[in-house]
């Protein structure tokens, strides 16, 4: 459909020469698309493929020069260590067996990765739920109710989105210490809510704006209260944008690093990014193990994103067209 830019109009009485030029143009067009797609695929997938490939290499292979792009003898050793909770004993001897400069040993805190994933999942889920509970009614009110100070409240939402995360770290640190929430999941829920809620309200607001006001009036005439109009009429219609919001809040919480670095100290509250970063700071650790940890850390968000692919695009569509 959108190829109209290129397709020659069929109606025009075509001279042979004109027709040949049009065919050439079409061929060139397809060539450009093919080339572009290939480039994009390599650019996007290349780094990830290398990460995955090196995560299943043995220590001997991973330090080969030049690198083995495809492992000769793939091994699941690293993943076993993560999932069987540090089965491999680490002693001075096992550590000495391998070349110290290249690492090659699996750290004892490998077993912490799964609990950290549990923490991440819990935090992300709570943040998503709170976002929906607080964000949806606010967005509905801003879009459909004409109240005094409506524009002001919209600007206020935008303003809170503009504050850089790093500027929030110091004050949050004091507040959370005072609340006694350091090293607890609660500290992360509070901070992540602060950084996701403005976005949630903003995207839902754009979506509700796209739905006609008449829907609201009709529902009210039929005897719905404001709350019923929201839950019975608008929520079902807003499903795609709700999915987009859920995804965004989930991914943001799953991926957040800075606040988690500041406010968590033990495995009681540490999340996946912190655990992964902790692995990388040990210089004797096996490279392939770090890469395996990276692979494990990206699997859940990637699955979530791909499953909801169609909803993301339609959800964001609604939000962005009116920009």
């Amino acid at each position, binding site marked *: *459909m959108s190829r109209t830019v290129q397709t020659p109009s069929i109606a025009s009485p075509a001279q042979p020469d004109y027709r040949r030029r049009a065919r050439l143009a079409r061929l060139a067009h397809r060539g450009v698309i093919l080339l572009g797609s290939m480039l994009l695929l390599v*650019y996007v997938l290349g780094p990830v493929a290398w990460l995955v490939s090196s995560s299943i290499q043995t220590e001997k292979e991973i330090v080969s020069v030049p690198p083995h792009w495809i492992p000769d003898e793939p091994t699941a050793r690293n993943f076993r260590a993560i999932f069987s909770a540090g089965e491999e004993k680490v002693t001075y001897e096992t550590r000495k067996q391998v070349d110290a400069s290249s690492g090659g040993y699996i750290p004892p805190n490998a077993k912490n990765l799964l609990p950290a994933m549990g923490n991440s999942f819990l935090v992300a889920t709570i943040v998503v739920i709170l976002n929906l*509970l607080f964000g949806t009614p606010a967005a509905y009110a801003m879009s459909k109710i004409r109240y005094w100070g409506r524009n002001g409240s919209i600007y206020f939402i935008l303003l809170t989105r503009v504050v850089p995360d790093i*500027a929030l770290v110091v004050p949050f640190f004091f*507040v959370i210490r005072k609340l006694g929430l350091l090293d607890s999941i609660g500290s992360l829920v509070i901070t992540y809510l602060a950084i996701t809620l403005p976005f949630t309200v903003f995207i839902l607001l754009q979506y509700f704006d796209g739905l006609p006001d008449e829907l609201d009036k009709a529902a009210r005439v039929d005897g719905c209260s404001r709350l019923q109009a929201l839950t019975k009429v608008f929520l079902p219609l807003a499903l795609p944008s709700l999915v987009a919001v859920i995804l965004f809040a989930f991914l943001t919480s799953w991926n957040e690093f800075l606040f988690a670095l500041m406010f968590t100290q033990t495995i009681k509250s540490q999340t996946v990014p912190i655990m992964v970063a902790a692995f990388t700071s040990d210089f004797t650790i096996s490279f392939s193990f770090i890469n395996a940890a990276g692979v494990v850390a990206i699997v859940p968000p990637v699955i979530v994103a791909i499953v909801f692919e169609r909803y993301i695009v339609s959800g964001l569509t609604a939000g962005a*067209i009116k920009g």
Partner: protein
Amino acid sequence: MPELDSATAAGISRSARSRFGYEERSALLFLLPAMTVLMAVAVFPILYSLYLSFFDIKLTRPNRAPFVWFDNYVELLEKPLFWTSVGHTVTFTVMSVTAVTCVALLVALLLNEDFRGRRILSAVLLIPWAIPYIADALMWKWIYDSGYGALNGLLYQLGFIEKYKVWLGDQHKTMWLIANAFVWKEVPLAAILLLVTLKSIPEDLYRAAKVDGATMWRRFVHITLPSMRPGFMLVLIYETMIAIRHFDLFFVLTEGGPGNASHTLSWHIYVETFRNLSFGAGAAMSYILALVTFALAYLIIRSLGGSR
């Protein structure tokens, strides 16, 4: 929590019934939870950091924090390292936002075409978006690795380099390498936002232009680009915010080094606050960063217009 909110809301509306009608009352009810949260978790910290920035707080002497007026700010502006980090932040932001926008535009134009495999391509494109920044950093650190990295391996096998290089140890290359890791991760979201505006351009415009004999290039310049203005605005604002405050990649890849080559403002705040433990100076810097970011967002909205 909800009971409390409705109670306060009812209280307020009863006391001012003349002013607040039914509309106002229900709006207040709906807004209160979100507004309370935002006040507590976004407005309060910013005011609090303004307040902190007037004190000389050091965790090394916890019980004494003298009020020092603008000393934190003055000291900050006098330090050359601060200005170095401002320079680096500007370089990084301009570099990466430009690259993200250009690449995303090409990707969006590609995905707007109708061809076989487009769906798969757009699903694959989501992968970088879903990857945590820390995993992104880790992946690129491994690729740039001086001993066994893929970049060295590839260039060596293709015959571009004679021997392996210490990529991240090169003062002139570090920023480019970090920016590349940033762009790789940010292009998908930017491309989706641009694609959405592309799809909203009515076909008739192109048809009319074609009848008038406009070439493909002219149609692109006079129809496509202007219609994408809201998309560009969204992308520019979002990416500028993200780039200017970016921290994770610097933390994992270089820790501000080599030397000061990647010492950016957000890294500077981190070092001042959590390594030198001078919270007042950190707060002052955070406050400056917040103001600058806000000013930038305002400028972008004003110059590209169109939004509320």
